[in-house]
């Protein structure tokens, strides 16, 4: 494959699409799939066949269309006689409605009056898509469709026009920071690996999205896997690596299967493998599948797991950039970071940096979930105020309930109360209010959620997921969880609160890795903002949210009490 051949495929696919009257995209991401999107797609295909529209209508599965809550989502792009393309997005489509869409819209040419989402709605209008650009545009299982949407063009540019140092300079100019949570400048990391000496170098994509309540990386891998592979190949060229690994969670079977398909397709056209774009650059990517260990999201634990060992972290330095997989200099970034790379190359670092805040550039993908009207996947410029994300894009809290807290950063993050709703969301501001960007899970809680119970939930998570290597985390999470349970049983005292705070300091200061260091964060942040609730559990032996019942059920079983009607 060379540039001309790529262009040929792009043009052929473009012409094919232009000849169609309607392109019907059915959301085939995990959310809609679980609501039956496969049956919807089958009904559409059947309807199109029966109407003999096969030549003018294409029905395909797309990446996440965003608004999971209104699934199954179906997008119809219709080409008007004047060449203009008009786009309709149908919500809550089932097989019966799919038949109506075929009859009225595809055959009759009139879009359905009801059941359509307005694309001018803030949910769509306030978003800014970079990473999710391809989701909904291309069919993640057809390479031609992805190529027509621009896949691998940045890689071609890099290999034929830029030197590795130019790529790193561009990335540095973009201000892109690691999207896995820590926010380490990507340009700096790449240049460290570029300069490191070793017989070989490795690129690893961290797709071990372990935070409960986060599904951004999953959606990117399912909706646009080639974008991630392209980002990795560009990284390989920039740092001088010929081997890459994607370490993906075992809990994501669909993402794994789409990645496998994408890898095969890219290898067949020599977009990966030997002599890519007929240059001297070789880059191979292999999949490594995790087996359910949260700690493997930590980079040194992940490396141990790729090596086929127990996923336990080790002290840093040396950092993986110097000594990583098998002691070789290793670049590790997460899915979303790599997915941003093609855009940095295409548009240039300066243009990328035009979006966002002073220190946090570009966009961030968030998974909106919990007690919020519009659950789903969104991408907004860095610095968008929390209030806008929750109330304008997310549609606020359902059932007339009051907002209580937004949880970011998963089990290492914190709960942000109403008084900080006007906070522009970026790396620094979240840390300032005691939380953490994390990978982008944003879970909204209303007045029926008990913050002591939530703290106990996260501590139980960390207790179970602690790898056991270092004592502060192994023993500390057990002690902290026991104290929190005492509180939810109304058996706690104010001395217990003091002890919790003391242990929180200890874990933070002395744990080996981010899991133990971050484990106290949910406790610390809820104690900081919702101390009243803790005190009600201690002094008045009651739970203001009505979740904790005072008996001694395990935390997980007690959750039922907190369900909204």
């Amino acid at each position, binding site marked *: 494959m060379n540039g001309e051949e790529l262009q040929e495929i792009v043009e052929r696919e473009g012409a094919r699409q232009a000849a169609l009257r309607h392109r019907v995209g059915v959301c085939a991401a995990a959310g809609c799939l679980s609501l039956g999107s496969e049956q919807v797609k089958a009904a559409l295909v059947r309807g199109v066949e029966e109407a003999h529209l096969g030549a003018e209508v294409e029905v395909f599965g797309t990446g996440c269309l965003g608004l999971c809550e209104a699934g199954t989502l179906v997008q119809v792009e219709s080409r008007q006689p004047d060449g203009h393309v008009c786009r309709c997005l149908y919500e809550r489509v089932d097989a019966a409605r799919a038949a109506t869409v075929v009859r009225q819209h595809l055959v009759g040419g009139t879009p359905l009056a009801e059941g359509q989402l307005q694309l001018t709605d803030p949910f769509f209008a306030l978003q800014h898509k970079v990473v999710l650009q391809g989701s909904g545009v291309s069919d993640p299982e057809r390479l031609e469709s992805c190529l027509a949407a621009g896949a691998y063009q940045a890689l071609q540019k890099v290999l034929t026009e830029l030197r590795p140092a130019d790529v790193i300079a561009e990335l540095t100019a973009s201000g892109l920071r690691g999207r896995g949570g820590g926010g380490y400048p990507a340009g700096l990391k790449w240049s460290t690996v570029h300069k490191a000496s070793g017989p070989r170098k490795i690129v690893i994509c961290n797709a071990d999205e372990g935070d409960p309540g986060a599904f951004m990386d999953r959606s990117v891998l399912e909706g646009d896997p080639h974008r991630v592979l392209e980002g990795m190949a560009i990284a390989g060229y920039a740092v001088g690596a010929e081997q890459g690994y994607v370490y993906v969670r075992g809990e994501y079977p669909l993402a794994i299967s789409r990645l496998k398909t994408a890898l095969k397709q890219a290898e067949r056209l020599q977009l990966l493998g030997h002599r890519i774009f007929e240059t001297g650059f070789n880059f191979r990517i292999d999949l490594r599948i995790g087996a359910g260990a949260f700690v493997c999201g930590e980079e040194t634990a992940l490396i141990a797991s790729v090596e086929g060992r127990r996923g336990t972290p080790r002290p840093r330095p040396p950092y993986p950039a110097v000594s990583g997989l098998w002691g070789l200099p290793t670049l590790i970034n997460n899915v979303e970071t790599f997915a941003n790379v093609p855009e940095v190359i295409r548009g240039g670092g300066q243009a990328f940096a035009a979006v966002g805040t002073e220190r946090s550039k570009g966009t961030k993908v968030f998974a909106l979930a919990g007690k919020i009207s519009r659950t789903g996947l969104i991408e907004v410029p860095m610095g968008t105020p929390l209030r806008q994300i929750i109330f304008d894009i997310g549609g606020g809290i359902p059932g007339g309930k009051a907002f209580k807290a937004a949880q970011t950063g998963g089990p290492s993050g914190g709960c942000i109360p109403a008084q900080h709703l006007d906070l522009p969301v970026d790396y620094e501001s979240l840390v300032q209010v005691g939380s953490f960007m994390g990978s982008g899970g944003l879970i909204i809680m209303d007045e029926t959620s008990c913050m002591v119970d939530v703290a106990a939930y996260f501590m139980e998570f960390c207790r179970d997921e602690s790898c056991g290597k270092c004592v502060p985390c192994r023993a500390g999470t057990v002690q902290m969880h026991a104290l929190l349970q005492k509180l939810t049983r109304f058996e706690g005292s104010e001395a217990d609160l003091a002890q919790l705070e003391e242990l929180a300091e200890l874990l933070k200061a002395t744990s080996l890795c981010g899991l133990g260091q971050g484990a106290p964060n949910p406790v610390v942040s809820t104690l900081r903002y919702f101390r009243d609730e803790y005190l009600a559990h201690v002094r008045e032996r009651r739970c203001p949210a009505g979740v904790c019942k005072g008996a001694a059920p395990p935390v997980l079983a007690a959750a039922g009490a907190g*369900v909204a009607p």
Partner: protein
Amino acid sequence: MSAPGGSTGHPSGDKRFKMLDAALRRQQYQSDALLEILHAAQELFGFLSDDVLTYVGRSLKLPLSRVYGVATFYNLFTLKPKGAHTCTVCMGTACYVKGAGDLLAGLESAHGVKAGQTTADDQLSVVVARCVGACGVAPAVVFDLELAGQQTRASVLERVKGWRASP
């Protein structure tokens, strides 16, 4: 002596070991592919018995302690046989705040099992997952391999009822 590892097959003649051999060959008997091999073995056998672990260890030339250590470290590997059907309740944060605990409590009381256990007739295993990444349609439950969103206590029990009734 046999060529690398256990390519001579397993004395029991169980065909699944032949398929495991194929997976081992694909990984060229590299010891760092231990996780991949354990995934393959669990897919073939349903769980990792002592026999299978020993076989994998010999094939990859790894001490059994290492194989056992890895198999017990990761949540997705199971050393005990599972029921004919598995109902996995997601306990991710989004599902949790939307009442996943209630779904689990319903299953536990209706079928007399705790999370992580299998019913006495070996028909149903109830499992808890950390997060299946379907937070947009929480609460989510995985019935065998099929993911279902926006579940209720009643819908879960209805779905599982059929499994236990069938012989």
